């Protein structure tokens, strides 16, 4: 098997060498450096477009998805090799999206074969961009208190209500949303997981300006929106199962994002360049972060190995979400402290990233909710 992997690595390496455009080998991560796809996407360069198309053709945008749904059918070892080789040439990811991270895994798990065939390949090719419609105004962490309603009108639901914190809803083509389809049922029941075309009549969005000066989130309004019955994932009134499954994915994703954003270079090494790291307080804090960050990276690795071996538990994602986001917040604080007055204007991305990181421990389940989940489900504490 190791021989197979070695050969696989050689193939990937050769393919990358031939196909990854030079401009895409700058390791850039950030709002626009990686393509998000969708009909509204403006490629920042021809190379970005070429890179997406070449990867999509091989299934490399979603390496572990089955080939028939637009993926490359890689196993985890192979995927790791793909990522390692991509990192070796400092290559950008060809595509990122909520379709890849969230809807895709949900459909692969809960969707019908037809749904998979219909929805997944456009995600893999970067043609359709998805956003998530969970939270509602005033509900905060209490996702199960969804009020946006879908009335059964025979062949469709008539959807009315409002979502908030829908990431990039103003740029997305479709939204996956939790809709209350049974108003009699108790909280967690009576919710369905619907797929809604953002161009449907009655859908509108309004960006929310954040403390970072950016507007990655929107309010999204549904005013008598007709959603065909076949646009449901899973069973009617059982959307909570899908949402829970997805939350786990989201949590793992958020937990790792801080580490990935930093690349493989240590924060200490980066900050040391400023010459501000000789001072013991900052130096000490950076050392602690470095140690915790390395150990957390190993934990992400370990949990993946556990999941693959079938010995992990879903609840453990609460830990990754909590720890990863708190760690990233510390990281961003240190980046700001290390930069001193250099990072106090809007001239570069440090301040926006720092401010943005404060949402990490709120979105996708607050740190407090994660701790309560751990306390009850893992530690078995009462009440």
């Amino acid at each position, binding site marked *: 098997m190791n021989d197979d992997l070695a050969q696989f690595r050689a193939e990937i390496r050769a393919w990358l060498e031939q196909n990854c455009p030079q401009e895409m080998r700058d390791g850039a991560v950030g709002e626009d450096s990686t393509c998000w796809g969708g009909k509204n996407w403006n490629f920042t360069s021809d190379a970005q477009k070429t890179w997406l198309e070449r990867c999509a053709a091989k299934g490399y945008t979603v390496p572990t998805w089955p080939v028939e749904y637009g993926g490359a059918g890689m196993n985890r070892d192979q995927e790791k090799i793909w990522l390692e080789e991509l990192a070796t040439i400092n290559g950008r990811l060809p595509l990122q999206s909520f379709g890849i991270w969230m809807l895709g895994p949900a459909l692969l798990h809960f969707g019908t074969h037809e749904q998979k065939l219909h929805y997944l390949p456009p995600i893999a090719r970067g043609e359709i961009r998805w956003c998530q419609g969970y*939270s509602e105004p005033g509900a905060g962490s209490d996702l199960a208190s969804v009020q946006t309603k879908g009335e059964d009108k025979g062949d469709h639901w008539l959807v009315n209500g409002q979502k908030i914190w829908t990431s990039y809803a103003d740029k997305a083509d479709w939204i996956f949303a939790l809709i209350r389809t049974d108003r009699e049922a108790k909280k967690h029941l009576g919710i369905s997981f619907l797929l809604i075309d953002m161009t449907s009549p009655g859908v509108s969005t309004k960006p929310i300006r954040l*403390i970072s000066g950016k507007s990655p989130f929107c309010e999204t309004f549904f005013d008598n929106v007709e959603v065909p019955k076949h646009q449901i994932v899973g069973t009617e009134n059982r959307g909570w199962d899908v949402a829970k499954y997805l939350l786990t994915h989201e949590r793992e994703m958020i937990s790792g994002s801080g580490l990935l954003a930093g690349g493989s270079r240590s924060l200490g090494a980066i900050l040391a360049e400023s010459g501000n790291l000789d001072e013991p307080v*900052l130096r000490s804090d950076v050392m602690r972060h470095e140690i915790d960050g390395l150990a957390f990276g190993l934990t992400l690795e370990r949990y993946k190995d556990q999941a693959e071996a079938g010995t992990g538990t879903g609840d453990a994602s609460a830990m990754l979400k909590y720890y990863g986001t708190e760690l990233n917040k510390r990281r961003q604080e240190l980046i*700001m402290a290390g930069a*001193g*007055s250099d990072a*106090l204007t809007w001239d570069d991305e440090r301040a926006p990233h720092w401010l943005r990181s404060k949402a990490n421990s*709120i979105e996708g389940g607050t*740190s407090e909710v994660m701790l309560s989940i751990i306390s009850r489900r893992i530690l078995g504490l009462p009440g």
Partner: protein
Amino acid sequence: MTKLIRSEEEIMLADAARGYLDEAAPVAKLRALRDAGEAHDPALWAEMAQMGWTGVLVPEEAGGSDMGHAAACVLAEEMGKTLAPTPFLSTAVIAATALRQVASARAKAALAKIAEGTVTYALAIDEGSKFDPEAIDLVAEKDGNGFRLSGQKRFVVDGGFADRLLVLARTEGGVTLFDIPADATGVTRSAKPMIDSRDAAEITFDKVEATGEDVLGTVDDAMAVLKPALEAGQAALAAELTGLAAGAFGRTVGYLKERKQFGTLIGTFQALQHRAADLWCECEVTSSAILHAGRMLDTDPENAALAVSVAKARAMDTASLAVREGVQMHGGIGMTDEFDMGFYMRRARVGAEWLGDYGYHAGVVAGLRGF
């Protein structure tokens, strides 16, 4: 013996300031200035002059109210609560303290103008990304009876609109502080909005002329004038940050009492209660350090350095915790620009760096405490 509680005058001053600021300079004022692309509101400043605030450290014979440093800290603390956008620290605290170290008629005239509210100042020290008055390269070369200043300053808070600059420069035998007009020939200012919606300038000095008159204090001995000015500024900034923490905390506690989640008031969640209580303790402990710093500057300024650095270190730490808890406990709404918490968070960050960060002041404390 000096008491570590506010005097009746101070309590009255604080009450009056709170009343005025809530009305004239709430966070909405800062927001409006930001949205208009402005960093300074001359009308607000004029009103503060009327109330005697700009002259809080100006001697009475120069037209000031001369209320002292503790009073200046009271005002700064109240301004911190509403993030009032004024050059109070740069002008009324730092420049005024520097100027009153000097006996000249010119300094007295400058003080009078500060008290009147007809001049604003900015302090130009930093050249690197961290506060370090010892590490400056900007040079003032002898030129006949005067000097020529050449070099660069960064992070000159209020430097975009200030009328005059206090510039720290290297001279033959040490460092010298110059008081020059901000529009002098050879001065190029590039003001940038900071994240806290105030501004700071990068300023280039290209052979800028300065006379011996422009020297504040003695040539080669800037520290005699600058040290008290810096300490006054650091204490007042610490007070501002303490007010900022109180402002953020007050909003957070208010939110805990009104916001429901999972069907109950979030203020009933014990984990949040304990964190809020812990934060309150931090605010209380920091308040003591602020009071003490003001008292020391008023009664024993020669030995105020320890008190000032303890205050600044504590205040920035407390403010940082208050705004982080503020955003987190508010949840999503705390992340929105519409809500004010972001203004507090951004100002806390700028305040943490200005005039020395935690590590800088911890170093001062360690030095003075024998390690």
